[in-house]
């Protein structure tokens, strides 16, 4: 019982976030008459909001260093998008070249900012404010007010799905979508998606059970078998329902693979590697970290370089989804990403926050964006609603912290 309480105490913020996400989904589910959870809308939601998620992952690392933010990411998205248009549409280079050059551009832009922040000690707020102006300016010079069309790989990444290996082979009785009459063409089920979902969930189960056994064999502490089995079964069901849901529409969006990969990589870096641990330590107490051998300058440089790289990824994804480079893309993206991190439980002073939190925060932002668009709410009201959610999320955080200190 005590253990349970301790576990809940340690993880209350994370469960609180998921709870908030579910409440928001139910709320929009009701007021949109279920439209928000239609399979077609779910894959659209993923694509439309991929940029928030990608930027929020990088932003979370910046915030972890000590509440530092990066204001330039929206402009960097625009710069990368313009770069892509110029290289592929104007100069006619292959799209893969455009993508590689875009990524390198983002990385260099990030290193540029990291240099000023880490080695010249210009505060991140100022450095990235300058970056915001500089990168936007370069975008405008490249595009000169024009919109350039994109093609090839960009479109595939932005809008594509994994092709179905066995189209129309799913037996009639499995096509629940058909019975529910959810949308225009529910008679297909995407077999690829179902198979991928099934394999993924089986691999997940095996990995969890295998690591538990090997831990036990090496004498480490493990969870009880009961809780492991409950966890495994729950996730097995969730993964398969989700894949079935997407299979009712066009199947597995390529964007989703990208997002899952980024999530996995950055969770690994943040929690399992030395640089990740140093990041948390310096955000918690920079002086103590330095006196424990953490090279804080190097960390700042790496974090901001990485933010540039991820902004480039977000730029490619956004340009691909819109199938064009445009001068106005990326406006206020930085604010969405920062908001997602704080909704997701990041501390404004650094040292606290998880990649998982950034992802859930991004989804909350995404569901709100999408839901409010479906019901046709004026964008100005949308902006007010998002602002209030960020404010209340952090206020709740402060409140629960002061409670736990008293208790």
């Amino acid at each position: 019982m005590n253990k349970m309480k301790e576990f809940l105490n340690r993880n209350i913020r994370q469960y609180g976030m998921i709870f908030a996400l579910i409440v928001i989904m139910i709320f929009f589910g009701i007021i949109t008459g279920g439209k928000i959870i239609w399979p077609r809308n779910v894959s659209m939601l993923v694509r439309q909001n991929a940029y928030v998620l990608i930027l929020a992952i990088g932003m979370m690392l910046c915030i972890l260093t000590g509440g530092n933010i990066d204001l330039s990411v929206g402009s960097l998205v625009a710069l990368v998008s313009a770069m892509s248009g110029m290289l592929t549409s104007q100069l006619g280079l292959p799209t893969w070249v455009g993508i590689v050059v875009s990524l390198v551009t983002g990385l260099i832009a990030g290193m540029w900012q990291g240099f000023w922040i880490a080695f010249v000690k210009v505060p991140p707020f100022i450095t990235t404010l300058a970056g915001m102006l500089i990168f936007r300016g370069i975008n405008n010079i490249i595009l000169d007010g024009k919109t350039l069309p994109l093609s090839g790989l960009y479109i595939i990444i932005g809008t594509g799905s994994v092709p179905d290996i066995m189209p129309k082979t799913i037996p009639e009785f499995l096509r629940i979508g058909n019975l529910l009459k959810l949308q225009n063409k529910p008679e297909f089920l995407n077999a690829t998606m179902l198979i991928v979902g099934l394999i993924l969930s089986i691999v997940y189960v095996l990995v969890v059970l295998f690591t538990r056994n090997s831990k036990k064999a090496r004498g480490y502490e493990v969870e009880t078998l009961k809780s492991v089995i409950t966890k495994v079964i729950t996730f097995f069901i969730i993964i398969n329902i989700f894949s079935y849901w997407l299979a009712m529409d066009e199947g597995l969006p390529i964007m989703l693979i990208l997002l899952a990969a980024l999530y996995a990589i950055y969770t690994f870096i943040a929690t399992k590697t030395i640089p990740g641990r140093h990041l948390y330590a310096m955000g918690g107490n920079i002086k103590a970290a330095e006196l424990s051998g953490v090279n804080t300058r190097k960390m700042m440089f790496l974090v901001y370089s990485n933010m540039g790289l991820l902004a480039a990824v977000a730029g490619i994804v956004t340009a691909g989804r819109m199938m064009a480079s445009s001068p106005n893309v990326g406006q206020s993206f930085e604010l969405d990403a920062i908001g997602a991190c704080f909704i997701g439980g990041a501390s404004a002073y650094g040292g606290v926050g998880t990649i998982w939190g950034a992802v859930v925060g991004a989804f909350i932002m995404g569901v709100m964006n999408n839901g409010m668009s479906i019901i046709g709410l004026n964008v100005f009201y949308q902006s007010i609603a998002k602002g209030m959610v960020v404010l209340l999320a952090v206020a709740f955080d402060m409140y629960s912290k002061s409670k736990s200190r008293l208790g």
Partner: protein
Amino acid sequence: MSEYILEMRNITKEFPGVTALSDVTFQVKKGEIHALVGENGAGKSTLMNVLSGIYAYGSYSGDIIYKGEECRFKTIRDSEAVGIAIIHQELALSPYLTIAENIFLGNERAKNGIIDWDETNKEAVGLLKTVGLNEKYNTQVRNIGVGKQQLVEIAKALGKKCELLILDEPTAALNDDDSEHLLNLLKRLNKEQGMTCIMISHKLHEVLSIADSITVLRDGKTIETLDNTVPVSENRIIKGMVGRELTDRFPKHTPNIGEVGFEIKDWTVYDPLNEERVVINNVNMEFRKGEIVGLAGLMGAGRTELAMSVFGKAYGTKISGRLIKDGKEITLNNVEQAIDNGIAYLTEDRKQAGLVHIHDIKSNITLANLKKITNGFVVNEDEEIIIGKDYRERFNIKSTSIFQKVGNLSGGNQQKVVLSKWVFSSPDVLILDEPTRGIDVGAKYEIYKIILELANSGKCVIMISSELPEILGITDRLYIMNEGRVVGEMKTSEANQEDIMSIIIKSSAGR
């Protein structure tokens, strides 16, 4: 009305885990200069913070009677309102404001909420004359030296019509000329304006030359009040400051001292903020394996600066000298290199520089040596849990579990976490800077046991402490430092507190 302007009766003030003041009585006569002396941590500053309302009424017990009336100060403004002003050791001036603006900060000369600059400047000029500061009223404070800033602080207090002036170590940062000027000013204000002064000071010769009465505090208790109108001797005061019993406060041990493991040679360090100022002046020391060496000295003697400059140049600039470990010269350019070379430094300030308060016990312990639990690229969190549990048990860290945030632990248990961190970094040379500051007697004993264990396992242990009994109780040999130099070295078995104190005081007076 009694002869006392101020009486503090039965003051007791507790912090979590420590009693800082216990039943202290302190009486100041009207129109006298009253010195408050005692070792670091004796409770002098705490007592003055109680008096000035920094620790609000209700957070301590006991009575404060000022001019015959009981006072219940909630904030520093309440005490200022009745004419009590305090000048802290760290000056509270705003560097980019002018002298005049600083003098009237929080006490603005205003009409209907609008500042009257003519009046402000006129009064400032008058106050500057009173304190004998020859600077223009519109000079920015950052452009004048510390000695003059101290005078601005006094002018500020006078501007508040203060009748009881408290000065906490006013001459600690001043050179001899500035100190003398300040002391003369205090005497003059005392004579001409009848200002009552309370002065906290470590410099006994200054105390003896200026004070009418001297109150000695030790371990949060009033020991005695001496009348200095009949001159008292320095030794008499020292005896009051240090005379305490040493029965069983320290674990017994038999040292097993081996060969020299670490040497500091011709070590000189300059102040990073003022590259002209020498902070550590040609220090030579050697440390043997299995030996505990104490560094004794007053605050500001340069012990922390020495330790940090050795620890991967974490402090100082223009560092010169050599470090020799196991007979080989080593170069430590950053903290990481120092740790890799087996040097550990436990910081004097646990809260600011020792721990990540918002993180849990286990991740604080492993922070300085994550490499040890990393196979290739991945941190092994299971191993970390085992290590956390191991240290929690070995060092008896009282906590709900290793997942508890260190910010919620008591001072003694926090210190055990910091010790765990540095022991886990497997050092050969362990520098402990005030390892028992601010923790209670029981936890101190446990920490001494850990320190002895470390020495017995063959490490060089260097212990910086401002508590002389502690150094005498636990070290095998000691160096005495003052003003950045080594001014004495002795075997602990041949040392006593009076000798150490007088070596320190004589080495200051001799310069």
